[in-house]
Every structure is written in C-alpha cells, then in structure tokens.
C-alpha cells in the first residue's frame, strides 16, 4: 500500500546543498515510525529502526538532492548569471522556465527568436556562457532584490501521471529512492537494525554518504536510486541499460563500485521466490552512494536497487509506478530475509 505521496516529494525543490525542505518533509513522514530521527552537521537525515537483534546493521541510502543551478550574479540589464550543480548538458538549457530561490520566483532562460537568427546560428551549437535567466527585472539592483547570489535554481516542472500510468517529474533522481526508503521504514518493523539515511550532495560527489557511512559503519549497504534508462528510439538494445516497467534494476558494477556478488545473488533469489520482477542494470558507467558506503572505514558489502528513469538529469524524467512499488517490495523482502538469517555476511 502506498503511504508516501511521491508527487509531493518530487515537487519539493532541493539542489545539492539546499536539501532543507526535502529533509523537513521526510521528517514529518517518518516521525513515529522510527526509533531515532536526527540530522548530522552536513545535513544527512538518519532514520534508525533498532530491530530486535543487534546485527547485522543494514544501511539503506537514498539521496535527497537533485541536479540544478545556482545564481552567481546579475548583469546591468537585470539578467541573471548562473552555474550548474551536478551533471547537466548545456543543450538542456535554452527556452526553459525555472524557479529561483526560497520564494521560487519564475525565470526564463531565453534565446534569440528564430526570425532573428542567422542561418549559421540555427545549426551551430550555442555558447552556454552567453545564456542568462530573465526574471523580469530591468536592472542589476532590481534583480538582486528578488534573488540572492547562491540561490538554488530548479526546472519549473510538476510531477504527474500520464499515458498508461507512467510517472513524469523533475527530481525522480532520487526522490523515488527517498520515497522507497520512507515506505520501507513506515510499512514494517524488522528483525535487524535498519539505518535509513537520506543523504545530501550526492550529485556533486557522493559527499553526504561519505560522512554518513563513517558514522553508521554498515555491515550491509543498500543504495536506492533512480537510474539511467535508454529504452528509447535510436538506441540499440545492448545500450538500453534498463527498461521502464521491467522491474527494479539490480546493479552489478559501476564507476565507483563492484557490487557484492553475494548480495546480488541473494537479491535475485529473494525476488524470484517472492515473484517480484527485476532486471539487471546493464552498464558500468555512472556511480552512486554505494561507493562511499562500501569503502567507509574497514568496508562493507554493498548493493544497489534502482527504479529505471528515462531522461534523468534533464527537466523531466519518466518512470513506472510498478517498478517503484516492486522496488519497495524487494527491499522489504531483502531486509526480512536478512532478519531470518538467510544470508551470512
């Protein structure tokens, strides 16, 4: 049963380093469902369920932050300068509406109209350094009354359902992971200790997870993600990586982690026994918080379970609510199986 409103979680704005509203929302979701709820100095939120046994400690991480931009200043005409936070290709930028700062004031990343472009301008790549955000101000002074240097900037896109019941939204990477983790913590009690960690600054270098893992010292690490999915026209099947609707994706290796073969095998056996569809993440590029969880102190075996999300790191991504719900089932079944002693680490 869904008890977490994924739309609400995805529509909150939280660029890396600006995760406060996401954290506050998760706190309200988790109050009363966990034994300990606290944030650390860098902003990670720890939600601990003590369990009936002392070990093994399972750390489950999902990152609260999303890719976006920061205001860096304004020019004389009142147009904003900005810089990206996390991996965004410049081609995503022109002709988009964005929301800026705590008040979420609207802005437009404009370009010269097609009528006024020379023939050569229409075909050659634009210079991202020349892009500005128009917030309707007419001078630097006026602009800087509306926004401050360092304000976060996010795409102006709302979460919604469409088509044959797919989800589209701005920050699916990784609010779907946050939602899965919140569901897992809210829905049940577990035999073993579960430390859910909603991490900060993943998109700029897995930073929150590094200090969180040092504090938790997990014995088993699980990362929940919204991951790349290229099951779209123009891509050959072997490069899809994942497919929407084929179940949560189990990682094997990426740029930061070789996922524990023991945990991968166990996840697969749990999924097959419970009749939960799954797929493998068929690529080795990219990375996530598993890298930090497995490498903290003397190390821990780790695995990652992801919801395939088309078009991530763009204004809008697409995923399947069935993949999301099956990910919740898989994580719960995995934790229960550890509680029953079905896997010795």
């Amino acid at each position, binding site marked *: 049963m869904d008890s977490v409103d994924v739309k609400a979680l995805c529509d909150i704005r939280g660029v890396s380093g600006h995760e406060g509203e996401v954290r506050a929302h998760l706190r309200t979701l988790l109050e009363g469902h966990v034994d300990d709820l606290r944030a650390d100095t860098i902003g990670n939120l720890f939600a601990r369920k003590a369990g009936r046994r002392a070990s093994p400690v399972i750390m489950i991480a999902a990152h609260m932050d999303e890719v976006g931009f920061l205001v860096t200043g304004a020019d004389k005409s009142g147009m904003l300068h900005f810089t990206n936070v996390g991996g965004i290709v410049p081609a995503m930028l022109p002709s988009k509406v964005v929301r800026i700062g705590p008040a979420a004031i609207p802005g437009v990343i404009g370009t010269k109209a097609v009528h006024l472009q020379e023939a050569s301008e229409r075909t050659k790549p634009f210079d991202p350094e020349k892009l500005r955000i128009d917030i309707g101000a007419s001078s630097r002074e006026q602009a800087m009354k509306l926004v401050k240097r360092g304000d976060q900037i996010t795409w102006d896109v709302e979460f919604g359902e469409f088509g044959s019941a797919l989800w589209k939204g701005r920050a699916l990477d990784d609010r779907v992971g946050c939602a899965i983790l919140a569901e897992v913590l809210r829905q049940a009690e577990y035999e073993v200790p579960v430390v859910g960690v909603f991490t900060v600054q993943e998109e700029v270098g897995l930073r929150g997870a590094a200090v969180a893992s040092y504090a938790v010292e997990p014995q088993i690490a699980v990362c929940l993600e919204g991951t790349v999915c290229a099951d779209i026209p123009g891509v050959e*099947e072997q490069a899809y990586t994942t497919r929407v609707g084929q179940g949560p994706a189990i990682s094997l290796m990426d740029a930061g982690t070789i996922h524990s073969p023991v945990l991968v095998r166990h996840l697969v056996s749990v999924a097959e026994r419970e009749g939960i569809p799954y797929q*493998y993440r068929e690529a080795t590029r990219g990375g996530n918080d598993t890298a930090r969880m*497995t490498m903290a102190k003397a*190390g821990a075996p780790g695995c990652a379970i992801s919801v395939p999300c088309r078009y991530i790191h763009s204004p809008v991504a697409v995923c399947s609510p069935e993949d999301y719900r099956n990910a919740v089932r898989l994580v719960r079944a995995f934790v229960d199986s550890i509680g029953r002693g079905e896997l010795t680490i």
Partner: protein
Amino acid sequence: MKDLIESFTQAYGPSGHEDQVREVIRAAVADHCDRTTVDALGNLIAFRAGSGESSNRRRVMLAGHMDEIGLIVTHLDEQGFLRFANVGGVSPHVLLGQRVVFGDGTTGSIGSERVDEIKDLKLDKMFIDIGALSRDEAREKVEVGDMATYQRQLSELGTRLSAKAMDDRVGCAVMVEALRRLQNSPHDIYAVFTTQEEVGLRGARTSAYGIDPEFGLAFDVTGVGDTPKINNNLNMKLGAGAAIKVKDASVVVPPRVKDLLVKTARDNGISYQLEVLVAGGTDTASIQLTRSGVPAGCISVPTRYIHTPVETLELADVEASVQLTVKVLEGPIEV
C-alpha cells in the same frame, strides 16, 4: 618460485570476483603464517606475529593485489552474443582476437562489428562468442554481471616468464615466498592479498583501515622502457633488480621509506633500481592515506606489456624482490 607464479597467474580472479584466486593463495600461504582471515571486501589477510620487544616491534602491512583486469558481461543478445564492458584498464586493440574464460571455465572468443579503421575499434563494438545460438542458450552458461579474464598459459622465454595477470600475482608470489623464507622477524606482519586494486585501489584502503598499520609495503609490477621505440619516460628495465618506488601517479614514497629500502638492498648486495612511474597507481597510495597517515613504500617487479595477456618479467628481478622483502622484515623499521 616459477611454480608459485604459474599457479597464481593461472587462477581466475577479476576485480570483485577474487574467490578462486583467494583459495589458491590461501593454500600457498597458510603454512607460513599464524592465521588467515577474509574481510568485508574479500581481502585475504595472512597474519604472523613477530618476536620482537614492543619497542622495535612494528605492525607491518604488506599488500599485493589478487585481482586482475577483465571483462563484465552487460547484455546477452538474441543471437547469443555477449556484450561487455571493461573491468580495469583493458584496451580494445589488445582484446581483439583473444580468447577469454569465465569463472566456471566457460570460454569465449572476442569478435567485433566491422570497423572501417582500427582506431574506431571501441569496446562497445565488440562481443564475446561462447558458441551459443540464442539468448536462452547463452544464459545457460553466462549471466549478465559474470566476468571473464584472458585465457593464456604461462610460457618460459629463456630466463623470463610470460603470462596473463603477472599484474599482480607476481606481487602476491613475492609476498608468499618472502614469508616462507622469513625465519625470524621482530614485526607483526599482516600480509594482505587485496581486492579491487584495478578499479581504484579499494581493497587496500579498507583493509589498511582495519589493520591500522605503522608501516606499509606494497608489491606490484611496474612499467619498463627497454623495448623498441617505446617512447616514454620509463627508465626501469628487466634484469636490473627489484624496483624501489620513488613515485607513481598515486603516491610519492616518503624519502625515509625509500631510503630504508635502498640501504637494505645495498647492505645485502641485492640488485635494485629506482622506480619513477609516470602513469598508474598502486595500493601504496591507499595505505599511505589511511586514517591519520601511514609511512608506506613499494617494491615493484619490472614488467613488459602490462595489461596484456603476455605480461613478461625476469625471474632474477622476482628473486631480488623476495630477498629485499625478507631483509626489510628481518631488521628494524624506523621511519
């Protein structure tokens, strides 16, 4: 020594999947240590207590990596071909025409899509052919996530040996042979056969944290500049002795550590050369940056054709490395 190198290099063990090579090494080292353990990342730790007084008894970590480079299957296609990605530094040009082997002994040949120019050859145009006629038939032998390594027997070339995975099974062999010969050491020795070096020096980092050593010594191969028109800055060569690391891309060895190794080699008439490696890193770096820092050095075996199936080295250099290791461990370590 040759037998040890042969059995270690022939074992299967790509990064993160070191179970088989770990058992081969464990069997070889078990009689020369007090106990062996395996940690969370799969590092094999052979511990041997020292006999020294507490004032000169150091907690010493030796590290040589068990893992080798390889391939990971990312996709099984309808015709039964396996698409793959690299595990560590694998060149598509070296891979072309090779035979590879999986952990269960399944073998495959490397093929490629047609490319007009050889420089266009990339791993994503290549595949493994295991003789399967369909995806289902392929899946009976191989699943996505399985890893393969070069299949290549060891060959003797005069006084030299040529094999896959000399990087770094020869380092593991140096450690085992040194422990076998070492009669008496004041130091508590943790000989760690590390995992996942080829993908980011990972096993050494977590095992070093767990051991909390006072001194670290890594064992690896190093590149050489003694082949035709190799055109780089490598001055190491085969047959000139154990290579004492000065620096590589991941680490600058503290001069007092390097000096200890040089003095030990000189005092005992062991042939050595200094190693400045312009590219590539070693477990030395992981050990050095553990906790609040650990003085660490490295003894390397000069090796030609690193990261190919024909990594080639000189037995005399291996012997010098073993002798140097034994002498360092017998004496006081004040660094």
